[in-house]
C-alpha cells in the first residue's frame, strides 16, 4: 500500500476518523497499533512475526537493562541479546546471501572446492528501518538516556507506527515514547501545514519521481548501450528521482503522523544546495546520519581520539551506511566513496573547499553525489563501470539498439524537481501557504490538487527506499 495510492487515502481517512473519535488513550493507541499492523500486513502479513519478535525482545531487554542499573556487565549481557536478535534478523534476511556468495566467490578464486549455502529469503519491507528504531530503544536505556516504555503497547506502537514503519524517518525511542505519555489534542495539530506537506510529498513522488523513473530504469537496463549525454542525463535524472521519491515519502509520513497528533523528525533540508559532502550528509536522510552518529560514530570514539582515528571512524560509518542501504558491492563502493570524500574534506588541504564560491561548491557536491549514485543505482559493478566509462569517455551511442530514447518531458520534470527542492524550503512556501486565511488556503489547495492530478503517474513505482 503506497502513500500515493487511493486505497491508502481511504485507509488513512478511516484511521484518522476513528483515532480522533476514540475517547480513551489506550483505545486510541490500540487502534493505531492495529492499523499499523494492518498496513504492514498489506505488504506481507508473514513478516509481522518479525516485528512482534523484535518488539517483544526489546520490551524484555529494556526492562532488564533498567532493572540491572549499576551492574554494567549484566546490562551489557542484555544489550547483547537485543543486538544479537535484531541484527541477527537483519543479517539473516538481508545480508546472509550476500556474504555467502562473496565468500563462495573468494573460495572458488582460491581454488577451495567448498561453498556456503544461500537462503534466497524474501527481504521483509522496512526491516532496516524498524530494526534501527528498536535498537535505539535498548541502546538509549543502556546509555541511561531513556526509561523503559510504560507499557508494551507504547513500545509496539513506537516500533510499528505506520507512517514511518517501512521507510522512516528513523525515529528514536527517546523522541517518540514521551509523545505517547499523553493523549494528543486536535487543537495542537497544525492541520493546514500537515496538508501542505502531504500535498508536496505527493507531488514529489507521484508527479516527479515516477515521471523520471522509466528513463532511469531504461538507462540502467542497458548500460552498455548508453552514450555520454544519456549517461549524464540518467545520473541527473536519478539524483532528482531519488530526492523526490524519498523526501516525498518522508513529507507524507511526517504529515500523516502530524495529523494523528505526533511529531516525526525532519529528514531532508535542501541537501543539493550544500557546499561540502560532509555537510550534505547533515541535510540528506538526516535521521539515518543521526542514528549512525549517536550509536556508531560516537561509541567508536568519534573525533575524541585524534584525527586519524576519527577518519577511520568516518570510513567505518560510511561503509556500514553503504551496507545498510543494500547487500551488494555497489552499495559498499558507494559508501566508501562518500567516506573518502567526507574524510578528505576534514584534511587541511581540502578545507579550502569550504571557502569556494557558492556555485562551484554546490556543483562539486552535486557531481560527487550524481556520480556516486550511478554506482548506487547500478544493477552490479559492471553496469556501474559501463556507465561511468560512458560519462568520462565521450561516446555517442544514443539512438543505437537498446539505448533509451530521451523523453521530451525530462527537461521540464528535472526543472520542476529543482524548483521544488531549491525554493520550497528556502522561500518558506510551506509556512506561508499554511498561514493563509482558511478560505484562501482551501481555495489554493483545491486549485493545486486539481492542477497536480493530471501529472500523477498512473503507474506508480514502489518507493526506492522500500527496497532497503
Amino acid at each position, binding site marked *: 500500500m503506497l502513500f500515493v495510492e487511493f486505497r491508502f487515502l481511504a485507509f488513512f481517512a478511516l484511521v484518522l476518523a476513528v483515532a480522533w473519535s476514540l475517547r480513551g488513550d489506550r483505545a486510541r493507541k490500540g487502534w493505531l497499533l492495529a492499523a499499523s499492523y494492518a498496513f504492514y500486513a498489506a505488504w506481507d502479513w508473514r513478516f509481522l512475526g518479525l516485528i512482534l519478535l523484535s518488539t517483544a525482545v526489546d520490551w524484555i531487554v529494556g526492562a532488564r537493562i533498567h532493572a540491572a542499573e549499576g551492574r554494567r556487565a549484566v546490562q551489557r549481557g542484555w544489550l547483547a541479546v537485543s543486538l544479537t536478535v535484531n541484527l541477527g534478523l537483519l543479517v539473516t534476511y538481508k545480508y546472509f546471501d550476500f556474504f555467502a556468495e562473496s565468500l563462495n566467490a573468494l573460495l572458488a578464486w582460491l581454488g577451495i572446492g567448498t561453498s556456503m549455502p544461500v537462503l534466497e529469503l524474501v527481504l521483509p519491507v522496512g526491516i532496516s528501518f524498524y530494526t534501527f528504531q528498536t535498537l535505539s530503544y535498548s541502546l538509549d536505556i543502556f546509555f541511561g538516556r531513556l526509561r523503559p516504555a510504560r507499557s508494551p503497547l507504547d513500545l509496539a506502537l513506537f516500533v510499528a507506527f505506520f507512517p514511518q514503519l517501512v521507510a522512516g524517518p528513523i525515529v528514536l525511542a527517546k523522541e517518540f515514547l514521551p509523545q505517547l505519555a499523553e493523549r494528543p489534542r486536535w487543537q495542537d495539530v497544525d492541520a493546514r501545514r500537515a496538508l501542505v506537506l502531504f500535498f508536496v510529498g505527493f507531488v514529489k513522488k507521484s508527479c516527479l519521481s515516477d515521471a523520471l523513473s522509466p528513463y532511469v530504469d531504461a538507462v540502467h537496463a542497458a548500460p552498455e548501450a548508453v552514450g555520454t549525454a544519456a549517461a549524464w542525463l540518467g545520473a541527473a535524472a536519478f539524483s532528482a528521482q531519488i530526492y523526490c521519491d524519498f523526501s516525498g515519502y518522508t513529507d507524507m509520513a511526517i504529515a500523516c503522523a502530524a495529523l494523528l497528533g505526533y511529531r516525526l523528525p525532519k529528514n531532508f533540508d535542501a541537501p543539493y544546495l550544500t557546499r561540502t559532502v560532509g555537510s550534505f550528509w547533515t541535510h540528506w536522510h538526516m535521521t539515518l546520519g543521526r542514528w549512525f552518529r549517536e550509536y556508531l560514530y560516537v561509541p567508536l570514539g568519534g573525533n575524541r581520539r585524534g584525527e586519524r582515528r576519527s577518519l577511520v571512524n568516518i570510513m567505518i560509518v560510511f561503509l556500514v551506511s553503504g551496507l545498510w542501504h543494500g547487500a551488494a558491492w555497489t552499495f559498499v563502493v558507494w559508501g566508501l566513496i562518500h567516506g573518502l570524500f567526507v574524510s578528505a574534506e576534514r584534511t587541511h588541504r581540502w578545507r579550502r573547499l569550504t571557502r569556494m564560491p557558492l556555485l562551484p561548491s554546490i556543483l562539486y557536491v552535486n557531481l560527487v553525489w550524481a556520480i556516486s549514485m550511478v554506482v548506487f543505482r547500478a544493477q552490479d559493478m559492471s553496469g556501474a563501470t559501463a556507465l561511468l566509462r560512458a560519462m568520462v569517455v565521450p561516446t555517442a551511442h544514443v539512438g543505437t539498439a537498446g539505448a533509451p530514447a530521451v523523453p521530451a*518531458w525530462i527537461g521540464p520534470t528535472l526543472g520542476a524537481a529543482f524548483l521544488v527542492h531549491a525554493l520550497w524550503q528556502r522561500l518558506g512556501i510551506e509556512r506561508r501557504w499554511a498561514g493563509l486565511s482558511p*478560505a484562501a488556503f*482551501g*481555495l489554493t489547495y*483545491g486549485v493545486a490538487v486539481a*492542477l497536480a*492530478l*493530471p*501529472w500523477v*503517474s498512473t503507474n506508480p513505482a514502489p518507493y526506492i527506499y522500500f527496497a532497503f
Partner: protein
Amino acid sequence: MRAWIAATSAFLIGFAATNRALVSRVPLPAEAGLRSKVEYVRAHADDFDVLLVGSSATLYGVRPDVFEEELARLGHPGVRSFNLGVGGMGSFEAAQVLEGVLSERPARLAWVLYEEPLFDPLLWYPDVYNPRYVHWHDLRTTVDAIGAVALADAPPPYKVDEYAADWLGRFDWRLALAAEHLGLFGWRATALGEGPDLARRWTARDADPLWPSRSELERDRGWMDISLDPEEGARRAHEKFREDPAAWRARVDAIRASADERPALEGTYDVASLRGLLAAIRGAGAEPLVYVAPRGLPSPLMASLRDAGELDALLEFHLPSRYPRLAEEALRWDASHLNAEGATEWSRAFAAAFAAHLDATGRSARRTPSR
C-alpha cells in the same frame, strides 16, 4: 468549525473550477485513429449526409466512395458519407463519440447508420485503464454502463480468475466490474495522468502526427484497407484465419443455426440506453438505422429488438442466407473483417439495402429543404 467549513467550501470551489477547466480540455485519445477521425468529422460536421458509426468491422468494411456510387446508381445521387468506424469501439464509446458529433448540430446530416448497439458493459481489454476506456467514462456514460452491468451474464472468460481474486468479486464479479467502471470514471473526472497530453495540446507540440492523416481522411473518408493496417494483430488474425478455414465455416454454420433465435430482452438488454441513443440522433434532426456487420457472429438480440418494435428496421449483413458473398473466405481478411474486395462488395450491398429502406419508407438520403 466555521474556519473548517470555509476552507472546505473554498477547496471544493477551487478544485471543481480548475478540474472542470482541465477536463474539458483533455483531447480525445489518439489510439486507433479515434482523435483524428472524430476531430475531422466534428470540424466537417456540415459536410456529410450519412455517418456510419461502428467498430473495426465498419472501419475496414464500408467504402464511402463505393457506397455513394451505388446509391447514386439506385436513384439517390449526391450523397456524402463518412465512415466513423473505429477499431474496438463498443456501443457506449460510440454513443459518446456520436453525442460529440451531434453537439455540433450538423446541418446536413440526415442519417446515422449505427452498427449493432449491444451496450455491452464488459471491459474486454486486459489493460482496463487504457486511454479509450478512460475517456468514455464521463458521468452519464458511466451510470449507463454500471446500469447495464446487472444485465451481463458472464465476464470475459480470461477475467474470471481476476474477478474471483478481487475482494468485491468474491461477492459477485459484477461488483468488481462496476468498481472498474467507477475507477475509470475517477480517472476521467480528475484528468488523472492526462498532463502530458494537455501540455502537448497547449504547446501545440503533438509528438507524433495523428493517424489517419487529414489527406487520408479526405481521400478515403474514414475507410481503411485492412491489409495496410500496421498493427501486428491484424496480420496475425489474417494468418490464423488462413490456417484454419474449418473454423470459419463452423462460425458461418453457427450463424445460420441461430438465425431464428429471439432471446428475451427483459433482463438481458439495456433497452433504455438504446432508446436514449435513438432519441439523441432524432433530436439532432437525423434518422437512425441499425445494422449488423458481417463480423462472423450471430446477433439474435438485434432481431428481438426489431421484432419488439424498438428498431424501425434492421439491416442484417451477417446472415449468410441473405448475403452469401460476404461469408465467402475469399472476401475476408479474418473472421471479423472483410478484405478490400469484401469491403467493396459490402459497400454495394449496404447501399442497396439502404436504398431499399429509403424507397420503402419514402425517405430521402439527404435532408429535404423543409428539414
